[in-house]
C-alpha cells in the first residue's frame, strides 16, 4: 500500500511529463488562440482597436448550456455573436458562484479573451476583483449592480414581458389560482412575480398567485416538485422563475397549463405551455463586442426592455385562451409608447397598505430593490 502509492504518483508524473513533451506541438496547430500572458498588449492596434482575428470573447455560465432555459438563452446570444461578427468565443458551463469564478476569468484572459460576459448574479464580487487585475480586458456582469472602469453590468426589463404573460395566465385560469415557482426571494424574482400578478389582475381581478421558492436556479427535479405542490393546492396555471422546463412538464402531466421563462418552452411541454417570457441577449452581445473591438467601450449599467428588444414574449401557442393574443398586443403597444408603465400606482402590498400612490411610477432604484409582494400574491419573502 505505502510504497505503491508513491510509485503510482511517480508514474503519473512521469506520464504527465511525457505528454507535456508533445503538447505544444499538437496544441499549437489546433489552438491558435493560446498566447502566453503579456502578449495581449501587442495585439492591439494603434487606436486601441482589436481586429476580428484577435478578438476572443469569453462567456461564463451558471448552468449547462443544455438546460433549455437561462443558460441556453445566453448561449444562443453567444452563437448569434459568432455568426454576426465572426469572432472567436469560448465558454465554460456550470461555474459555481465561488472562488472558481476568479480562476475561470483569469484562465480566459490567459486564453486571449478581450471581453468576458459573466452571466450570474453571484459572480459579481469575483468579476469586480478580477476586473481590477486586468484593466485592458472588458468585463460584463449580468444581473448585478457593481461597475468598475472596465466592468459594466447589464440586465433586461423582463418584468415587461412578465406582465404580458400574466395577462395570458389571468385569462386562462378557471380556479383563479395561479402557481408560481420562484428560485430565490431576491428583488429580481420578486419584481417578476409582482409584474406577472399585475398583468393577471388587469384581466382578472380575483386572481391569486401562490408562490413557492426552491432555493435553486437549476434543479429540474426540485423545480418540478415545487410545481406539483402548487398544483395540489388548486393552481391550474403554473408560471416559473427557474432555469429549466421542469415546472412546465409538471403542469402537462396534470393536465394544467403553464407559462415558460428564459426561452420558448413550448416544445418541452406542448400540451401545457401557452407562452414564455424570453431573453434575447444576442444584440447586446454584438453591440458591446463591437464597442470593445472599436475601442469605444464605456462602463455602464444597462437595463432595457421591449424598446431595445432584449426581452420578448414567445408566440402564443394553441393552448392560450381566445382573445389573449389581442390583449397582449394591445398592452405591448402601450408599454412601447409609454402609456402603460407596469409599476405605476396605486399599488398595494399584501397587507392592503398602499405602497405607491396613484399616478406615481416606481423608480429604477425602487424596482431593483423590490422586497415586498403586491396584493394578490400569496407567499413570503424571507
Amino acid at each position, binding site marked *: *500500500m*505505502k*510504497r*505503491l*502509492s*508513491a*510509485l*503510482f*504518483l511517480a*508514474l*503519473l*508524473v512521469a*506520464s*504527465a511529463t511525457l*505528454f*507535456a513533451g*508533445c*503538447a*505544444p506541438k*499538437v*496544441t499549437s496547430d*489546433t*489552438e491558435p488562440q*493560446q498566447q502566453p*500572458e503579456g502578449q495581449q498588449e501587442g495585439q492591439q492596434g494603434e487606436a486601441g482597436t482589436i481586429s476580428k482575428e484577435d478578438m476572443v470573447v*469569453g462567456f461564463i455560465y451558471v448552468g*449547462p*448550456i*443544455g438546460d433549455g432555459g437561462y443558460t441556453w438563452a445566453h448561449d444562443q446570444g453567444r452563437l448569434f455573436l459568432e455568426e454576426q461578427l465572426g469572432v472567436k468565443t*469560448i*465558454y*465554460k*458551463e456550470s461555474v*459555481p*458562484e*465561488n*472562488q*472558481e469564478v476568479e*480562476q*475561470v476569468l*483569469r*484562465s*480566459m484572459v*490567459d*486564453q486571449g479573451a478581450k471581453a468576458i460576459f459573466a452571466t450570474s*448574479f*453571484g459572480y*459579481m*464580487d469575483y468579476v469586480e476583483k478580477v476586473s481590477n487585475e486586468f484593466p485592458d480586458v472588458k468585463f460584463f456582469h449580468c444581473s*448585478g*449592480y457593481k461597475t468598475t472602469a472596465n466592468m459594466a453590468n447589464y440586465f433586461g426589463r423582463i418584468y415587461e414581458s412578465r406582465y404580458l404573460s400574466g395577462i395570458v395566465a389571468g385569462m386562462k385560469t378557471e380556479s383563479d389560482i395561479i402557481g408560481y415557482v420562484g428560485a*430565490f*426571494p*431576491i*428583488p429580481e424574482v420578486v419584481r417578476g412575480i409582482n409584474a406577472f400578478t399585475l398583468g393577471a389582475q388587469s384581466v382578472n381581478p380575483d386572481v391569486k398567485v401562490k408562490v413557492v421558492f426552491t*432555493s435553486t436556479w437549476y434543479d429540474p427535479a426540485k423545480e418540478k416538485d415545487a410545481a406539483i405542490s402548487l398544483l395540489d393546492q388548486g393552481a391550474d396555471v403554473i408560471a416559473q422563475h427557474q432555469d429549466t422546463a421542469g415546472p412546465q412538464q409538471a403542469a402537462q402531466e396534470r393536465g394544467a397549463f403553464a407559462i415558460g421563462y428564459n426561452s420558448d418552452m413550448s416544445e418541452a411541454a406542448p400540451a401545457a405551455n401557452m407562452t414564455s417570457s424570453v431573453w434575447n441577449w444576442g444584440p447586446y452581445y454584438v453591440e458591446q463586442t463591437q464597442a470593445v473591438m472599436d475601442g469605444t467601450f464605456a462602463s455602464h449599467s444597462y437595463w432595457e426592455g421591449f424598446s431595445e428588444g432584449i426581452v420578448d414574449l414567445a408566440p402564443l401557442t394553441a393552448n392560450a385562451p381566445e382573445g389573449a393574443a389581442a390583449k397582449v398586443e394591445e398592452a405591448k403597444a402601450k408599454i412601447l409608447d409609454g402609456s402603460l408603465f407596469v409599476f405605476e400606482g396605486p399599488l398595494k402590498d399584501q397587507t392592503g397598505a398602499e405602497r405607491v400612490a396613484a399616478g406615481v411610477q416606481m423608480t429604477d432604484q425602487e424596482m*431593483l*430593490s423590490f*422586497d415586498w409582494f403586491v396584493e394578490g400574491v400569496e407567499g413570503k419573502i*424571507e
Partner: protein
Amino acid sequence: MIRMAKQGNMTGRKAAAIRVTAILLAFLASSLFIRILGHNPLAVYGSMLVGAFGSPMRIRDTLTVAIPLTLTSIGILVAFKMKFWNIGAEGQILMGAFAASMVAYNLGNLSRWVVLPLMFLAGFVGGGLWALLPAWLKMKWNTNETIITLMLNYIAIKWITFLQYGPWRDPASMGFPKMPNFASGAIVPKLFGIQAGFLVAILFVVLAHYFMHHSKGGYEVAVVGESVDTARYAGMNVKKIVLTALVISGGISGIVGMLEASGVNHTLNASISAGYGFTAIITTWLSGLKPLVVLPVSILFAAMTKGGGYIQTVYQIPQAAAQVLQSMILFFVIGSEFFVQYKLVFQRKKSPNPQEGGQ
C-alpha cells in the same frame, strides 16, 4: 465459480505492475472517449497539463485548489485512521468559516495580527465542535457516524444560507442576498501570489506525519482503528481518544473554512466549501492514509480538476464529458486497489490454496 480472496503479501513489483496497468487502461479508455468526442487524445491530455501548470498563473490557481484539499484530507485522515467514517468535512469547513466570519464581522477593524489568529482559532473551534457532535453521539448511543456526519453537512449549508438571506445580509447590497466582504484586516495576505494558507497546509502535513507515526496520541488512534477491544484491554480511554481525534479532524477542516473565506473569497457564503469536503475523501483514500502522500496526491488532483476545466474552454467539451473523463481515471486507479488487496480465484475441482496462488 469465481470468488474473492484476500491477497497475501504482494511483492512491490507485482502491485506496481497492477497499478501501471490500471493507469494505462485509464488512458486507453479515456482516449477512446475523447476520440468519440471527435478530438485528438494526446492533444487533449497535453491541454490538461497546460491548463494545470502551463503558466505561473495556472500553477497558482492549481495550488489554490490544492491547499484546501491537502488540509481537509489531513483532517479526514485523522478520523479515517480510527475507522471513524467522517463524511462531514464539508459541513465542518462551513462551520469553521462561520465561526471565523463571526470574528471577521465583529472585530475586522482591529489589527491583522489580532484578527487573523482569532479567526484561525475560531475556525478550529467551529469545525471541531461540528465534528465533536457526531463523535459524542456515537460514544453515547453508538449511532452511525457516516449518516450523522453526512446529514450535518446539510444543516451547515442551510445555516449559512439562512444567514445570507437573513441576519447577515449586507445592508449595502440593495436587497440582493449576499454577505458583506471582510475588512482588509480580516483577509489572509498573499505570499508569492498564493494565499499564505499554503504555509498552514505544509505545517499540518508535517505535524500530522509526526503525530501519526511518532507520537503516543497517533499510536492510540491507530490502535482504536484496528480494534477497540485491544485498545480497551491495553487500558486506553477509548472515549477520550475518539472525541479528541474528532475535534482535531473537524478543527482542521474548520481551518480550511477560515482560509477559504478569508484568503480566497473575502466573504462567507454556502458555496465557499466548493465540495472540498467530499473531494478530500477521495484524496485521503488515494494517499493510503499517509500524511506525506496527501500533499502530492492533492496537487495532482487539483491539477486534474484545473486541467479538466481548461479543456472545456479550449475544445468546448461539455462539462459533463470532462467529468466523465476525470471519473474514468479515478475508476481505474481506485479500482486497481481492489486487485492489489484481493484476487479473484477461479475454482476448479481441485481448488488451489488461495494463500499461495498467484505469487
